């Protein structure tokens, strides 16, 4: 538990401060207070003691890690019970958060009373008791729980996504295999054909060459013989 204390003075008489207390919101500083409701209000039989119960609605952007713990709603509620005591000249406000009360409780007590020496001034005393019920273990468990859930969600999302990629790939894979087969077959065919062609061409070339050369030789030999014969 932690304690917070603060004392301030206002240069207005107590009566005025208490009247202003009911009109405190909205104001341009506390923009996080979006609504104030009176839930119960009773005047005692002497007409000097007024007790009010109020619900204060706050709206604040919560850090992501906190929103994760307390839910996505960024509205929070505070219950306040106040007593105006005309005889004692005190206005005492006691408040406690309703939202996330299982994790953290802030009990705040505020007291307004006239300054002891100067009735035109009002003393404001504030005290807050802050108790965190969430141990580090609880927080860690929460974070783990959330992470596992999120992981599961993402995993199933990821699975779906991967499935579709796999399906697409597998389709392409089969096609690819087919394509490769076709391609290699046709290449082989073509190569074989080419080789055959080349071979054929070469063969014929060689044959042609042989024939030509043979005929050349024979022609030359005839001529040579003739020349020899002549001589």
């Amino acid at each position, binding site marked *: 538990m932690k304690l917070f204390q603060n004392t301030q003075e206002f240069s207005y008489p107590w009566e005025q401060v*208490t009247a202003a207390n009911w009109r405190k919101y909205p104001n341009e500083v506390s923009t996080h207070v979006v609504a104030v409701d009176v839930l119960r209000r009773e005047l005692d039989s002497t007409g000097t003691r007024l007790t009010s119960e109020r619900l204060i609605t706050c709206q604040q952007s919560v850090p992501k890690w906190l929103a994760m713990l307390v839910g996505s709603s960024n509205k929070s509620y505070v219950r306040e019970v106040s007593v105006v005591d005309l005889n004692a000249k005190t206005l005492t406000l006691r408040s406690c958060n309703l939202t996330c009360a299982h994790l953290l409780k802030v009990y705040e007590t505020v007291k307004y009373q006239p300054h002891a020496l100067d009735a035109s001034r009002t003393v404001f005393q504030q005290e807050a008791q802050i108790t965190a019920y969430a141990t580090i273990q609880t927080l860690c468990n929460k974070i783990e729980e959330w992470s596992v859930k999120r992981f599961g969600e993402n995993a199933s999302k990821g699975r779906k996504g991967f499935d579709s990629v796999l399906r697409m790939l597998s389709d392409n894979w089969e096609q690819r295999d087919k394509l490769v087969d076709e391609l290699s077959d046709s290449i082989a065919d073509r190569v074989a054909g080419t080789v055959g062609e080349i071979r054929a061409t070469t063969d014929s070339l060689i044959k042609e060459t042989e024939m030509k050369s043979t005929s050349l030789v024979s022609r030359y030999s005839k001529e040579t013989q003739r020349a020899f014969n002549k001589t």
Partner: protein
Amino acid sequence: MGNAMSASFAPECTDLKQEYDNCFNQWYSEKFLKGLSMENECSKQWYAYTTCVEAALVKQGIKPALDEARKEAPFEKGGESADSDASK
């Protein structure tokens, strides 16, 4: 401050709340603070407003947490913790 009045947590109750607030603020300054009042006035406006609020508290799911807080710090004790002397 001026005429700016705070809204109700339930938008459907805001008009009724402002009617009540107007009446209360006047009563508070003009009568209560001067020790001139023996009764909590504005009962007509109060009834209309509180009926609206009660329904909205249930509808918006605030009631359970509120009941818990009421047990812990009763209205009758001015909002002081019920187990204030045995505070943990």
